[in-house]
Each structure stands twice: as C-alpha cells, then as structure tokens.
C-alpha cells in the first residue's frame, strides 16, 4: 500500500515544474526511506491544480495536526462539555440537594426507582385528597430515574440524591451539543462553538443548572435546543436533497423531540408556535417578494410538508397521553401566558402576582426594562464602552447582518425569520415577566455568537455579506 502511494507520488512529482519545490516535497515525504509515508492528493479541476498532502507517519505531530485540523470543532466541543460539567460540581459541598423544586423531581424519581412508576394519585400534594398525576409532564423524571438505575448498576451503593448532584450538571453540559449544531446550521462551526461556550457559561443558566439542583431548567434548555437543531437540520437537508427519506426522518425526529419537550415542560407550547410561525412567515415573505401565491406555495411546499410531518408525529405522541385539550391549550397558550398575572374577574386571589419571577422587569422607562432583561439574560449590564460588545447588541448586529445579506445577496432569509421570531417573542414576553428571560437567553446567545463568528470572518478577509 505504501509502495503504491510512493509510486503515485513519484508520478505526481512529475507535475511539479519548480525543481526546488520538487526537492522539498521529496525531502518532506522521506522518499529515501520509503516507509511510514502517507500521501494524499486532490485534483482541483476548476484551477487545474493538484494539491498534494504528504504526512510522514514518523512525524507524530503531523498526524496530530491533521487530526486537530479535521476535528477541531469536536475537540473544542468536548473540552467545553467537560469543563461545563466539572465547573458545576466541583464546589458542591452539601449533605443534601440545595433547592426547593429539586425535591419535587427527586421525589418523583424516587417513586419510579422504588415503585417502578408514578402513582395515579400523589398522596403528598394537595391534602387531603392528593394530586391526580395524570397531567404532569414526566419525561425528565423517567430520564433521571432510569439513568440513575443504570449508573447504580455500575456504581453499587450510589444513592439517588447523590446521583442528582451530577445529573443536572451533565444535562446542562450536554446543551453544548444541540446549540453547536444550531450555530453551525445557521452560520458555521465557529458560531456553533462560540454559542456552546456562551450557553454553558451563561451566568443566568449557570445559576439554574448547578450540581445538586435537579430542577427542570437544565432539561428545559436541552429540550428547547434539540427540536430547534433538528428542525434546522430538516430545513438544511430539504435545501440540499429535497424532501427525501432523510428529510422525512429528520422531520419525524423533530416531531419526536418536540413531543418529548411537551412531556418535559408545560411551557413547551412556544416551540410549536415558533415552528408554525417560521413556516407561516416564510410563506408570507416569499409571497410578498415573489408577488405570486402559487410560486410562493411551490417554493415552500417541501418545508410545509416537513412541518406537517412534525406536527403529525407531535400529535400522535401527545394526544394519547394528554388528550385533545392539550392541543387546544397550545393554541390558547400565548394569550394565557401573558395574562397569567391578571386579577380581575377572579373568584380567588392569583398567586402569580407574588412570584418574584413573574414580576415585570425593573425600570421606569422601556429602555430601563430592556437593560434589566439584557443584564439578567447575559450577566452583563448595558452601559459604558462595553455596551458595543454586549451580547444584546451583538444579537442586533447579527440581525442587521441577516437583513443586509438578504437584501444584497439573497442569503440567510430562513435564518433571519427563525431568529427574529425566536428572539422577538421571548423579548416581548420578558417585558411582561422576567421569568421569560430564560427563553430569551438562548436566541440571544445564538445571535451574538453568529455576530462574533462573522466578525472573525471579516477579520480573516472574508466577504462582508457572504
């Protein structure tokens, strides 16, 4: 095999007319030794050039370099995941779980571990009759319980509460994977890596995903990102290959991920609205651009079909568990969510008015409120010179880039629509109640990462609007 490659290399050297270069290549290839040599060549017909890549196996660092070049994003992602996991657990020093809601999930996971499932009536909640558990979202509880049972086999004696120190940290660290793909699909690998870094080290997310606090914030974040990543993968695949088997599979997986999200968190409805909004806005936008309904329809037929597959799978996985009312609830959810704090026309008081997270953001003016939201979402207040590099403004730069790029080069329309909806919806909701900042932080991170990746490209000499 090596000999064959050397023969091929010698043939290829015939193409090199520059003698000095030829000598250099021969020397680097170590032809005099004729062993341990790997030769790769690639012909570029558009330039009529042959690219020769010679790596001596005896040069370990060359092999390593090639490996790093090829897999730098995966390696960076791995480093980010490991550090994100470790930083969440290294300082944990309590003999118990630390947060109130942690014990809700702990108790249900304990039910599953001890009794094999969740009882129909929870005897501890809503005394004296108990809580009917039929409508509770339980995917996270089963995930925690079954993963615990798996690890308890590997580490006999591992207690559930101890496992729950590591579990939320692992879930939060894994969020780096889907957000990497979101960044990659929307822009490039760099954007994905930067987004992964910013997401796992976002102070707002860090507070809610520390080790020993198995509240649902981490899983909600993860289950938000997975459907978006799969949805983008579906759209990308449709762009490349049309609505083939792979696209259908990806759409089905998106529907599955979306359904699992609903089985995890009651607020998952906004993701259904995001996808539906994307398809609707894209159709309308293209109708306005093309000025022809039929053309716009034809152009988006595959995307609409993929959306219908997503929704079909979603319905199939939701209705048997929660009933048709769940779907009605999703349709009504936006008005319901924004009116959660209403007190008028009620028989009894509304507790939501007293929940700190349901308060409107502090600030006398609209801009003060935006500052409060931006600070909570990023841990970085607006103001001073640093404002120009604040993730909130970076996100706006990214949106401007998408708009200009579309106007000038007809690129990034999909990214513009999706990110606009994903960013503006939660931003508006955050002005009503600060708890919705958790929904805002993710698109903010994705957009600001795209802005930084674009800036990097500009510095490297790439086209401004590419």
């Amino acid at each position, binding site marked *: 095999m090596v000999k064959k490659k050397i023969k091929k290399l010698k043939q290829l050297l015939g193409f090199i007319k520059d003698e000095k270069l030829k000598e250099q290549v021969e020397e680097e290839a170590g032809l005099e030794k004729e062993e341990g040599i790997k030769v790769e060549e690639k012909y570029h017909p558009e330039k009529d050039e042959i690219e020769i890549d010679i790596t001596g196996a005896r040069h370990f*660092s060359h092999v*390593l*370099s090639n490996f*790093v*070049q090829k897999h*730098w994003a995966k390696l960076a992602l791995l*480093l980010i995941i*490991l550090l994100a996991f*470790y*930083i*969440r657990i*290294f*300082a*944990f*020093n*309590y003999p*118990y*779980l*630390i*947060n*109130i809601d*942690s*014990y*809700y999930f702990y108790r249900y996971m304990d039910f599953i571990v001890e009794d094999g499932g969740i009882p129909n009536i929870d005897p*501890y*909640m*809503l*005394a*004296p009759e108990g809580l009917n558990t039929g409508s509770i979202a339980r995917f996270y509880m089963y995930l925690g319980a079954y993963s615990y049972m798996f690890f308890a086999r590997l580490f006999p004696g591992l207690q559930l509460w101890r496992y729950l120190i590591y579990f939320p940290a692992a879930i939060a660290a894994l969020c780096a994977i889907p957000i990497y793909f979101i960044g990659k699909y929307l822009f490039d*690998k760099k954007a994905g890596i930067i987004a992964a*870094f*910013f997401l796992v*080290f*976002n*102070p707002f997310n*860090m507070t809610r995903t*520390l*080790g*020993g*606090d198995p509240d649902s914030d981490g899983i909600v974040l993860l289950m938000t990102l997975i459907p978006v990543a799969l949805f983008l993968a579906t759209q990308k695949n449709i762009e490349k290959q049309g609505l083939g088997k792979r696209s259908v599979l990806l759409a089905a997986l998106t529907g599955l991920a979306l359904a699992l999200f609903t089985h995890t968190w009651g607020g998952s409805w906004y993701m259904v609205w995001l996808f539906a909004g994307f398809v609707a806005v894209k159709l309308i936008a293209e109708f306005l651009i093309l000025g022809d309904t039929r053309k716009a329809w034809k152009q988006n037929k595959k995307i609409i079909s993929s959306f219908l597959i997503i929704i079909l799978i979603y319905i199939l996985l939701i209705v048997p568990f929660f009933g048709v009312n769940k779907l009605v609830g999703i349709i009504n959810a936006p008005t319901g969510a924004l009116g959660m704090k209403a007190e*008028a*026309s*009620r*028989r*009894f*008081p509304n*507790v*939501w008015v*007293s929940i700190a997270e349901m308060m409107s953001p502090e600030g006398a003016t609209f801009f003060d409120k935006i500052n409060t939201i931006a600070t909570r979402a*990023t841990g*970085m207040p607006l103001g001073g010179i640093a404002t120009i*590099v604040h*993730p909130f403004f*970076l996100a706006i730069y990214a949106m401007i880039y998408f708009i200009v790029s579309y106007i000038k080069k007809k690129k990034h329309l999909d990214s513009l629509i999706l990110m606009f909806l994903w960013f503006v919806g939660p931003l508006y909701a955050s002005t009503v109640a600060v708890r919705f900042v958790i929904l805002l932080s993710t698109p903010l991170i994705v957009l600001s990462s795209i802005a*930084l990746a674009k*800036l*990097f490209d500009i*510095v*490297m*000499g790439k086209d401004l609007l590419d």
Partner: protein
Amino acid sequence: MKITDEGVASALLWLVSVIYLAGFTVPIAGLKISQFPLPVTIGAIPFRWLFLVFYSIALFFLFSWVEIKNKNILAGLVVFFSLLLSVLLDYKLVIVLLALGAYFHYKKKPQWDKILVILILFFFIYIPTVASFDQSYVIAANPRAILTPSWWTALNWIKNNTEECAVVATYWDPGHFITGIARRPVVYDGGTQNALAQFNKSSVDLNSKAFQDPTMFTIEGNTVVRSRMKDMATTLFTDDEELAYDILKLYRGNCSEMYYLASWDLIGKSQWWSYFSTWEPNKATGNKYFYIPLQLSMKKEGEDGSTNYVFSLGQNQAIVINEKTAGGQTIMTPVLKQGPSFTKISKLFYFENGKAFMQQYQGAEVEGMVWLDPSKQSLFFIPKELENSMFTRLFFFQGQGLKHFEFVNNWGGEVKLFKVKFD
C-alpha cells in the same frame, strides 16, 4: 477552514483569555492578580492540576496546528512552557504578553493594521467572555443552598416523629421540601400555588367560622370550592384562632395528627400572605402589611444615666428605645423619632434577665408593637394589623396563650413546629 497567521493569533488570544478567566482575576477591571482560586480537589488531585492538564492539551493541539503552516515549533513551545511556568509560579499576566510576543516572533514582519484588527476582535470576544465566564465561575464556586441546616434538621425530625398521614400546613414555599424530605402531605406547594380545594358540601360544617366570610368559598352544586392560597394566608393573618383552626380542619383528612409550621422566611413574605388573606373579588386586590426589621445603628448614653438604642429607619427617622433604671427596676420606652419630634409607640416586647416582658403605653400616638431581640441588636416593628396575627403569635411568641396550637420544637429560631390540637 483555512488556517492563517491571524486566525492562529486570534485563537491563541481567545484561548489565553479563557484560561485567564478560568482562575484568575480580571485584568481589564484592574484587579490584583490573586492566588489560583481553585483549591478543591478531585480525589487526591488538586483541581488546578487537572485544569492545567486540560488546557495544556488544548494548547498542544493548537500549536500542532501552528506547526503545519510555519514549521516553527519554537513559538509554540515558548508559549506552552511560559504558560506552564506562569501558572505554577503565579505570574498570570505574563502569559498574555508572552502569547503576543510569540506571535510577533513567528510572524517576523508583523502587519500592524492586521494586528490592530485582531486586537479589536479580541476585545469583542474578550468582553462577553469576561462577563459570561467570570460570573459563572463565581456562581459555581459558591453554590448557595436554599435548604438550610435548620430546615434539614426540622424536616428529618418531622419524618421520624410524626404520623405518616399527618398534614404539615404552612405557606406554599417549603411545600416540596416537606413532601420530599419529611414525606408528609402538604396543603399546597410550588407546583400548586393557585390550586383550588373542593369539598363535598355534606362533608363540611357550613356553620363553622371557615364559612362565615363569603369571599372565602363558593358553592357549585354539591361542591364547596375554596382557594388554598387564601385559606393558608388567612391562617397566618387572622387574629381569630378559631377561624384558623376551622380552616385547618378542612385539610386534615382522616389523620389523627396535623402540624403547622411558622418559619423565619414568612416574616418577609407577610406582604403577600396579608394581601391574599384580605383579597376581595369585587376589588380584585388586597392589603399588604409588613414587619419592619431594623438593626441597631447606635447606642447612646443619655445625660440622665439612661441608654438610648437607636434603630435607624432612614434619613431623620428612627425607632429609639430608651432604657433607664429607677428604684431597681428597668424601664423601657419605645419612641418613633421623626426629625426633631418624638412620638411614643404603644407596645414593647422585650427580654430582661431571660424573662419576657410586654409593656403597654397609654396614650401612645403610634399604634403597633416593637419586638426587641434579647441581644438588643435588632428589633421588629409590627404594625397593628399584624400585631395579633396568628403568625406573630406563633413565631414571635411561640404560640403562648393559644388553645389549638401546641408548640413542639424550634430549630435555630428559623423553623417552629406546632401540633394542631383537635377537639
């Protein structure tokens, strides 16, 4: 991805910044370089070593990358070992300079315009990284538990010393703690704050005090509907023990035991439980009442030999406790100081030589009570609306004089447990 000199330099700077932020103080904020703040170990291995190895591998990958383009491993080695030494010797800032130096070394003819652009890029990446990583590190390094040792002990005591069916009633916040740790039923919790309670009409006593206020229930056919929030808020706010007792009876179930928790955190939440208790549907609002906690700001000896304990309320406002001894007796007088004027407060509760005293002042202009801590370092001003509330009587007075609430235990002054005594 095409690897350029600028790309390598930028990536290097970015990586260095991440390493910097991972364990060091922020240079941009002008802070002093501190000791590596990661003393925690994994097993027997200090975290700083793991971290060092972790990033050394990352750097090695990076420099392998540099080598392809320049065949100049020297620059890589210089930075690598300088980083190693810098971390070991605690000269952290040096690494940034060495990283830049290494860049200039391998790029023999630096293009200053590009370097400027790189530094701007670095600035754009560095600032959000500072904000993100540095704060996250602080949060992760100091995880704060909401569950305190007092709560933990109290809940385990409840688990081991009460009947399994015993409902533990209190405000919603610690609900998941009670169900998760003590494994006892609760009236409501963080997942069911707005939940309503439904009772069969025939199973409740409609003549009891729990059904005297029409804003507290509705009847729909054979079902009586109540708000758990309003009920529990009322058990805290009302000054009528029988009303609190009648409400609690509704949630007792068939168990022979029932408990009630009054905890420190409910002092700050009084605005909300008083609001929910007084909430009226036709007004769609309620009234908020606050306990006002004050710390001793000044202790002043008076000319007449008395001592004034000053608890500042803000600018030109304070509660002053005047203490003087006459005829072998200590006389304490609470006054509200507003600018130059002083007005008496109607009640003072204080401790002297381990005994508790309640003093009432006739003709006092300010209604309400001052509850003075035994150490005289802090006090609570309790407005008249909360003065006789069940919470005040349970938490501040350990349930003294109550018929249906028997004090069971107190954990760190933070959690107080009462047994509800049924007829």
